[in-house]
């Protein structure tokens, strides 16, 4: 074959059309995601105005980031579960069982064996939690894939079973306190990485963005594929880098409360001046965890064959099987992965509460599913993005924390969240119908 036949028409760049749509197309941005970012900004500005200027403050945004992390971590896994045409209703109850297990281990079992405050306590607790999450998730996935019970039923059963197990594990007691190191996962008073490290993380992210964009361009160039126009490439990189640095700047503008700062200064032998000290907290550990999870999950979903299989199964299960994919085993793996993410979220939640109660994670399955769906995941399967789910989680949490700031009653909050969920999906399906 001759190369010219396939490449010549691709090389032609659309000239003349300089409308907004053409500009967007040149950058190859996902317009759905862009729409979500715009919606989020509208919500933020709206609440800022309505709440009398308390929403867009470093303090509130810092809190928002911490509150979003647990749901966001689980939502990234829920995307893959829903994309494969399944659902997991058991995540909230699973979270309680895993959280309770980790709490019992570090508050009651391990201190007896290893001694109080042993360094390995948090490592063992977390590891056991992750394995348990994978096992519970994988077990449910096995029933779905190999026994053939619909996932809605299996995980509805799981919702009841695991909630009951969580209660039985401690007869309804509250298990506390958590190991000191483990508590950092919750982003409490000490669970942040500090100003300097936050800037370092931001710097690494900027370098990574530049490397990824250049690498992609080099790869496509090697095969002679169509490239983004240079202005789009540079503009996109610049916007992404500025967004990262801006986020770090906002987070770093939130200082420790005076009492904590004083303690911090005393521990490090810093003299406490008259006017007090401004010591930024930096990015909270659960937020860092959430960011890492989102990146890893994006990589898994788009750059690993496992992720590709999950999408293929969602698009056409029969075709996936005929293509030679081990579809059943792939489904088991998605549920096991969901379980691992639930365990991470359980660690964040118990660490943040500094306790485990049997009601832990109640209703979080609904928030997680809502986050994934608001983020553009289709319940029909085959469609969804990790970034969308994280944005969806942020939208849900923004609504809630915004209404709290405005002093809206809890029942009305639920009504608003419910309406937003339905409206968001309605807009999305309208958009989808028009585009195909």
């Amino acid at each position: 074959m001759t190369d010219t036949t396939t490449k010549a028409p691709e090389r032609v760049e659309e000239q003349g059309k300089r409308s907004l749509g053409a500009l967007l197309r040149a950058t190859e941005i996902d317009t759905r995601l862009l729409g979500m970012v715009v919606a989020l900004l509208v919500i933020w500005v709206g609440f800022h105005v309505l709440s009398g200027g308390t929403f867009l403050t470093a303090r509130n945004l810092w809190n928002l980031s911490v509150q979003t992390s647990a749901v966001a971590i689980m939502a990234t896994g829920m995307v893959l579960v829903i994309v494969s045409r399944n659902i997991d209703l058991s995540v909230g109850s699973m979270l309680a069982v895993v959280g309770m297990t980790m709490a019992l281990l570090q508050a009651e079992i391990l201190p007896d064996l290893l001694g109080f405050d042993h360094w390995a306590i948090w490592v063992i607790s977390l590891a056991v939690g992750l394995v348990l999450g994978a096992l519970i998730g994988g077990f449910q996935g096995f029933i779905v894939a190999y026994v053939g019970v619909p996932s809605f039923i299996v995980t509805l059963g799981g919702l009841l079973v695991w909630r009951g197990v969580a209660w039985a594990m401690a007869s309804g007691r509250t298990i506390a306190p958590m190991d000191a190191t483990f508590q950092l996962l919750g982003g409490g008073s000490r669970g942040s990485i500090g100003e300097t490290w936050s800037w370092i993380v931001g710097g690494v992210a900027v370098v990574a963005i530049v490397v990824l964009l250049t690498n992609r361009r080099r790869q496509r160039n090697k095969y002679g594929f169509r490239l983004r126009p240079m202005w789009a490439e540079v503009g996109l990189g610049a916007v992404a880098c500025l967004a990262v640095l801006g986020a770090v700047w906002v987070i770093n503008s939130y200082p420790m409360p005076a009492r904590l700062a004083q303690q911090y200064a005393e521990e490090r032998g810093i003299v406490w001046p008259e006017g007090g000290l401004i010591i930024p907290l930096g990015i909270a550990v659960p937020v860092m965890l959430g960011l890492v999870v989102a990146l890893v999950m994006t990589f898994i979903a788009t750059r690993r064959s496992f992720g590709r299989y999950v999408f293929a199964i969602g698009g056409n299960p029969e075709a996936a099987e005929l293509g030679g994919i081990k579809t059943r085993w792939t489904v088991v793996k998605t549920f096991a992965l969901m379980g691992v993410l639930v365990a991470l979220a359980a660690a964040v939640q118990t660490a943040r509460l500094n306790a485990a109660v049997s009601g832990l994670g109640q209703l979080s399955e609904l928030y997680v599913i809502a986050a994934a769906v608001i983020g553009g995941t289709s319940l029909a399967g085959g469609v969804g993005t990790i970034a969308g789910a994280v944005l969806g989680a942020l939208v849900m949490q923004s609504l809630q924390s915004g209404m709290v700031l405005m002093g809206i009653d809890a029942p009305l909050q639920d009504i608003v969240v419910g309406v937003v969920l339905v409206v968001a999906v309605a807009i999305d399906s309208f958009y989808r119908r028009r585009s195909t």
Partner: protein
Amino acid sequence: MAQVVEERTPLVEMRNMRVAFGGVHAVEGVTVDLFPGEVVALVGGNGAGKTTLIKTLSGAHPADSGEIRIEGKPVTIANPRDAKVYGIETIYQTLALADNVDATANMFLGRELKTRWGSLDEAAMEDATRKIMGRLNPKFLNFKTAVNSLSGGQRQSVAIARAVHFNARILIMDEPTAALGPAETAQVAELIKQLKAEGIGIFLISHDIHDVFDLADRISVMLQGKLVGTVNKTDVTMDEVLGMIIIGKLPHEVSQTELEKLH
């Protein structure tokens, strides 16, 4: 049967194949074979069992009994992965494409190219897809859109490209031209002749008797799950094959009265 005695080992032998769905015998004791560089057409009315028979070879549906030999060696084909190991590729009537992903992803579904870090090598896969599509359907340019937004002909090209890309030795084509216009049908016919010349054995299922006579070397006729017979194309006329399809008897067995009923 007017069958030449072959000295060579057949590429594929399917002996006494049986498949039942509940109490219904979809395929009942069918024996067919295929030689390298040969096209064997499987014809018969709707529900004759052609697709079911061929699914036992492609691994899509297991046979209840019967023996499959590849180059003389008995093999077990329990799933599509087994079939691919023996170099059997299939173009299904339904195309079996994952509609929500692009042509490149469909091309390499289950056999992705990886970078040395184990991640998907998108650029290399897109390049290979562009090359093969350049050969099969030069007008095809939508490498980045989900295949559900492509036309029937384009989707068919993707399915065909996938089957021929991985050096198949045995190709199963179930109504490969059903969704195609005249120009594209001619292209597929050309492709079949080319693959044949490369020594690939092809099972062709088709409703179009003209296509069959144009492309096949031998014709196996099925009726109600049973094999009516296998004939060399040069030994029969189209009317005789039609007679086999409808009456279920070989040309020399058909009586004059039965023939008259047909007309």
